[in-house]
């Protein structure tokens, strides 16, 4: 009985495997997880770019597991892809995968997060977190001026410090804030978890009344902030009493709605589509043998406020996705 059951299982798996040979250029895309609409946007545009160029691709998702990502990249190499486009799950551990790629003569393209050792990376589409933080600080000053606040007193939300992006976004902001004479009245550790952010922000708002701005390192936290501010009676639109200048980073769909209605002042748009597009376009070029002059290519940071969103419409990934 048991034998039959297991044989059936093996047979079913066999049947579900239809072989198809890959011809032409094949791009391997390795994502760390799908738990962020940012990754979703990156992957979507990466695949679209490949399709548009008439090139095949294989996408793998590592489920937040570093060992799995290593395995998946090894499998992509086995499969004989012509280039690997990758968002590293762990920036230290990915170095060994880069070595694997190099040993197999396959170029490695980093997207979004930078490997700890950039030695053998053929192309890196970087996210300039410092520029994002700077843009936020600038917008915050503008917003305060518009609202008539003399000094910016900001509550800073901090992401999960295991994420290099979170580290850079907080460091960048602290520097920009110091330059402009902002006062950071409180820091809230969110660990990139909305529930924790809710609890901790609520706790923080309990003890602090004197603030007029909030720095949000990722748009997905915006609904949580809305909830907390509503409870504290500070959720008002621009121009109204007690309005809090909120500046965030990402540029994802959540932010669009809030900015258009005036509750959030600005978001630093790190265009997920650009990452995917530039990475795959670059990968295809490299696969054909054309290596880029500059290895590190930052994606331009957009400053999205009410007016600019209305003007830009469909070209912003946050509006489309």
């Amino acid at each position: 009985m048991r034998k039959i059951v297991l044989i059936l299982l093996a047979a079913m798996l066999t049947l579900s495997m239809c072989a198809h040979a890959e011809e032409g250029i094949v791009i391997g895309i390795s994502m760390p997880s799908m738990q962020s609409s940012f990754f979703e946007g990156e992957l979507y545009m990466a695949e679209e770019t490949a399709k548009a160029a008439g090139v095949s691709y294989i996408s793998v998702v590592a489920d937040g597991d570093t060992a799995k990502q290593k395995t998946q990249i090894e499998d992509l190499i086995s499969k004989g892809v012509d280039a690997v486009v990758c968002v590293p799950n762990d920036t230290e551990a990915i170095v060994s995968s880069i070595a694997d790629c190099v040993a197999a003569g396959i170029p490695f393209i980093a997207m979004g997060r930078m490997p700890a050792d950039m030695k053998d990376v053929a192309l890196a589409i970087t996210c300039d977190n410092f520029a994002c933080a700077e843009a936020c600080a600038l917008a915050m000053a503008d917003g305060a001026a518009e609202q008539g606040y003399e000094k910016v007193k900001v509550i800073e939300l901090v992401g999960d410090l295991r994420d290099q992006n979170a580290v850079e976004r907080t460091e960048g902001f602290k520097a920009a804030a110091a330059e402009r004479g902002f006062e950071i009245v409180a820091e809230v550790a969110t660990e990139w978890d909305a529930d924790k952010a809710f609890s901790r922000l609520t706790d923080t708002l309990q003890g602090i009344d004197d603030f007029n701005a909030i720095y949000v390192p990722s748009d997905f936290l915006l609904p949580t902030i809305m909830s907390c501010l509503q409870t504290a009676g500070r959720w008002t639109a621009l121009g109204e009493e007690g309005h809090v200048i909120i500046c965030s980073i990402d540029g994802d769909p959540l932010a669009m709605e809030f900015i258009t209605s005036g509750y959030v002042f600005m978001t630093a748009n790190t265009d997920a589509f650009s990452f995917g597009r530039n990475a795959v376009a670059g990968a295809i070029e490299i696969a054909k043998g054309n290596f880029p002059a500059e290895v590190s290519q930052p994606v331009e940071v957009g400053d999205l406020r009410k007016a600019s969103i209305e003007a830009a419409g469909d070209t912003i990934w946050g509006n489309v996705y």
Partner: protein
Amino acid sequence: MKKTVLTRLYRGWTSNPVFVATLILFVAMTLFVPSFATVKNITTIAQQFSFTGIAATGLAFVLIGGGNDLSIGSNISLSSVAAALVMTRLMGATGASVLPGILAALAAGALIGLFNGFCVSRIGMNAFILTLIVQMLCDGIALIATDAVSIGNLPAGYTFIGTGNVLGIPLPIAIMLAFFAAGQFALSKTAFGRRLYAVGANRQAARLVGVPIEKIQILAFVISGFCGAAAGIILSARLGAATPSAGSNSMLEIMSAAIIGGNSLFGGKGTVVGAACGVILLSLISNGLNLLGVSYYATMIVKGGIILFAVALDYFNQKMRTRQMLKG
């Protein structure tokens, strides 16, 4: 008919569905999955499951003894972190630091195993919950010790474990095979092994016969901890970095592999060879899904399905065993 070694081997293999399934899957993949049947791919797969294989070996001991160990994953992470810390922070990543690093990892793993064994066997805490707690503890300690950042730049002597060859065989594979052989030998040919089976099968009876139950179970946990540490060393050597969270995701896979391989949750049954087969089977499935580019969501569902299947299989096996016992 005279029972020759060959016939016994043959009957052993065909009676265990895992062997059959693995064989069939292997053949099917050779025929149907492109890029599968190359030497490079096969050796790559073997290296990939080297660390889960070693951990599953250790887990088999605990399962056979009637316990359970959910902390293996975190053990893997913490041991590798211990090794990395000793090598990089204490000894400056020199060649001489490799051995102390390895010893630190193995010691950490064994200590965790000792703690697990003591709490479960001596104090009588529930194995599931206790090892779940230890898992949280180890993860937390690993995070604090590394400040949540992976430790890279490990000395070359250490990473050689993950990337080097011995007699043409990649080291991870060789080490894994050594563990398989040693583990299976310990289980089938030593007094400890026999007693372990006895304790797992019927604790009360074993106690009546005079078997030192607690010592046996504690030793099983220590072995599991030790194997977990070894797995951690191999994983971090392959990755070239010690990640505070690397092993945590593997716990479920290691557990499923051991159970599929015949190591019953009810205790008293199973082998290292079975666990090894379970690991191979799961790796083949994983590799196949990767090579075919199956969607992420589908793989999650497959994952859940496999665990369910493994547990269901174990349950049915247990039912049939009990039925046979009552008949005979």
